[in-house]
């Protein structure tokens, strides 16, 4: 399932239109940064088995996020690097090595028609992205800008440019997801609260861009009040009536009415977005201050990377 995504569609949740956007927003931003785009530019989010792409014109691309063993015309290319691609090249993905979602960015951006100020594909509304749907064989995606990259390529089929991004934020404590306590956290019984931290939770097959259904020891609430619906967020961990948990992901509904046990902090959304059915993780609580500081640090890191990449790309294009 491959779709066009950006950082999400905000301002319309009051009309029931959820933000959507990339599941791993850090990787989506890094892909854009590597090729000199603004971080808000649309990218292609790939799930394995992923589409193959035929380039009808030369391009500068970057692949980030999951490692799906990418090749250009049969030759392996690394992720997290900008790659110049000649006309008539074929990009393919062969094997899911790690992660759940890869992101493909092209220099200058994709020629999508934004819907409500975003290029994210909204499958239910059948709008945004590429005709509001999943990419299919023979789709032709335009580039937004024509950039003459031929002189740079000379006669080579492709060239890996000499700058890269690291992929290690979020990789420490890989099996750990940090969260803030939710408003109904205290509804859990004491033993269930203990289990919440001690158990590891398995991401089940019943998991997609809307949310991950987790499997663990069932948790039990001592308070069982009916809740009227209210807004929910990416990363909200809800307790379902059967005692299992669901973590809401990018395509979550705008509102919900299940008890909110926890909220995964923003910097760990990408880590979650790179997990897939069969993966396990543990929850750990942190506090608001830490969550905010980590997020600011991540954003500053992205800004530094963006400045460095812009500088190098300008040098290359001018030289």
């Amino acid at each position: 399932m491959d779709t066009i995504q950006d950082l999400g569609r905000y301002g319309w949740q009051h009309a029931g239109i959820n933000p959507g956007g990339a599941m791993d927003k850090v990787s989506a931003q890094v892909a854009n940064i590597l090729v000199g785009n603004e971080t808000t530019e649309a990218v292609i989010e790939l799930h394995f088995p992923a589409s193959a792409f035929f380039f009808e014109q030369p391009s500068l691309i970057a692949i980030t996020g999951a490692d799906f063993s990418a090749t250009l015309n049969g030759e392996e290319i690394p992720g997290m690097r900008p790659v110049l691609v000649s006309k008539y090249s074929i990009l393919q993905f062969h094997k899911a090595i790690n992660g759940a979602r890869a992101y493909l960015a092209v220099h200058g951006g994709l020629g999508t028609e934004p819907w409500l100020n975003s290029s994210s594909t909204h499958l239910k509304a059948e709008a945004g992205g590429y005709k509001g749907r999943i990419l299919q064989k023979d789709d032709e995606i335009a580039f937004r800008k024509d950039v003459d990259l031929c002189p740079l390529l000379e006669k080579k089929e492709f060239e890996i440019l000499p700058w890269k991004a690291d992929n290690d934020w979020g990789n420490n404590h890989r099996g750990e997801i940090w969260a803030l306590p939710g408003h109904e956290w205290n509804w859990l019984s004491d033993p269930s609260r203990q289990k919440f931290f001690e158990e590891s939770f398995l991401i089940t097959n019943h998991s997609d861009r809307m949310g991950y259904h987790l499997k663990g020891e069932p948790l039990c609430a001592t308070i069982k009040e009916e809740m009227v619906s209210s807004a929910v967020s990416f990363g909200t961990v809800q307790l379902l009536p059967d005692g299992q948990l669901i973590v809401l992901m990018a395509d979550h509904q705008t509102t919900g009415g299940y008890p909110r046990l926890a909220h995964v902090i923003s910097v760990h959304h990408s880590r979650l977005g790179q997990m897939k059915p069969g993966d396990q993780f543990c929850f750990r609580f942190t506090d608001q201050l830490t969550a905010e500081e980590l997020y600011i640090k991540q954003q500053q890191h992205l800004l530094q990377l963006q400045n460095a990449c812009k500088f190098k790309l300008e040098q290359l294009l001018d030289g």
Partner: protein
Amino acid sequence: MPGSPRHSIFPISDSALTIDFGNIIDESINQQVLYLFRQLQQNPIAGMIEAVPAYSSLTIYYDLFQLRKSIPAGTTVYDWISARLQEKLEQPSIINNEETRLITIPVCYEPEFAPDIEALSRQKDIAVEEVIRIHSSGEYRVYMLGFLPGFCYLGEVDERIVVSRKPQPQPVAAGSVGIAGRQTGIYPMASPGGWQIIGRTPLKLFDAQKEQPALLMAGDRIQFTSITKNEFASY
């Protein structure tokens, strides 16, 4: 009204918070929510991304990075924005003159569009015609939108035709009108759903191509009017 009714503020993410007026379906509380929502639409707090009204709560999403740069050190962004909202909530609110639209929604209640009306009629021991008369004689308030793009939660359904939702969601056609507890609502698009379906409207509740894609908005007043299959077809 001096200030707002009792409320609590709590985070629902590290970059969103909810102002909760009491976990209840109540018209005056919903008016309060929408009043605050409109105020924030007109005069957003710096760094606010968007506000989302629900039955008895308003959720504010905000930009952590932007706010961190502009607020004093030594406080979390959450504490800072909570304090700003607290100030807003303490200002007197004027909600008596809530401007609302009255919108009539045509519904065909005939069996082919109403897979669950028969069972509802049996369960409540009321003739199908009477179920239709009761449902289409009420005036409903759009309390909130959610679940699907353009899906509206309307209240409140007459006690006599209240039924609980289905245990398992089933495929529901676009335009289907359903009941779940004291709520009634319309599915803007085909979707799995658990509400008991008693009719279908030919109106398009959601149109992505329109400037305002959702036909209805929170605060609207709704009347249903019964139409025949022929009228449905010629819409």
